[in-house]
């Protein structure tokens, strides 16, 4: 990559196209372009840099998914959108932790992102459920399932990795693990 490319900041349009094309570079630049803004907002409102990181990453994930689903309309600037989402998330966290919400009390620009944040929270709840179901599985089930469904390893790879004598045995084990996982997942 040459210098002039590196230093140029892509436009919102380019960012969105980059996300749609799974461009790691676009995501990288987008992330770095707006973190300072959110960090400043969080630091000014009773948070620390870890809070800023959590809130910011959640907002980036929300934006990323919205773009991927084709639901993001470029009516507002990306920067404004990210800021509003972060505000909403942080406001919620603050009011959960204590009654006082500091001095960010104006809700006007927040309502439009409310729906996005809530949708994300619902999904996140399902992910937490999945996470805890996986934890309950124990080893080697947990890793077998993760390797197959998250890291897209083939049954052949998994068979070799765990030292099963043949792929069919590994497959049988995978389905046993899967049955247990589903039982736990659907119970809670």
């Amino acid at each position, binding site marked *: 990559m040459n210098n002039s490319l590196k230093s140029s900041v892509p436009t919102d349009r380019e960012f969105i196209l980059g996300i749609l094309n799974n461009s790691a570079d676009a995501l990288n630049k987008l992330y770095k372009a707006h973190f*300072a803004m959110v960090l400043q907002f969080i630091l000014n409102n009773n948070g620390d840099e870890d809070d800023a*990181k959590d809130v910011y990453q959640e907002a980036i994930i929300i934006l990323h998914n919205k773009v991927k689903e084709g639901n993001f309309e470029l009516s507002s600037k990306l920067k404004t959108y990210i800021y509003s989402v972060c505000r909403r998330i942080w406001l919620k966290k603050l009011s959960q932790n204590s009654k006082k919400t500091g001095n960010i009390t104006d809700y006007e620009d927040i309502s439009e992102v409310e729906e996005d944040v809530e949708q994300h929270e619902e999904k996140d709840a399902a992910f937490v459920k999945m*996470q805890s179901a996986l934890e309950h599985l124990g080893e080697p089930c947990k890793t077998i399932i993760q390797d197959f469904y998250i890291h897209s390893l083939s049954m052949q790879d998994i068979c070799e990795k765990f030292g099963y004598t043949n792929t069919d045995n590994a497959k049988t084990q995978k389905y046993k693990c899967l049955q247990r996982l589903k039982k736990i997942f659907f119970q809670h």
Partner: protein
Amino acid sequence: MPAAVKENIFSTLIIEMRNDLELDAIIEDYLLGKLNPQEIEAFEQLRRNDAAVDHKVVSHKVFLHTMEEYAQQLLLKEQLEHIHSEIDVDDLVAQIAPHPSRIVQLWRKHKSAIAVAASFIILSLVSIYSIQQSTGRQIRSIE
């Protein structure tokens, strides 16, 4: 799994009692599009005739969908963690810490200019002082 074996499983499935594990395997193959047209037809027949199997398919679909989204989110988070690790957060915090007043900000912004100005002032004071001293001595010596 060879087709003959699969077909064999199908017939046992339909006629006799079901082996849950094999049913799960077939459901997943079905949902992931790994069955051939013949198998698909046989399996859909089974779905139509057996509400329990039908429901298993639906619930597995929900499960797979959640798993897929979960996997995507995990991978995205990993990516974001990596990007975040490249940012010098301490440096950013120092730059944008909320405390500095206007004067402190002015000082930070123009540190070098202020330093240069200050050294000029000191230099000129020293030279004025030394000139005064020497002229004073000269006057005294004349007297």
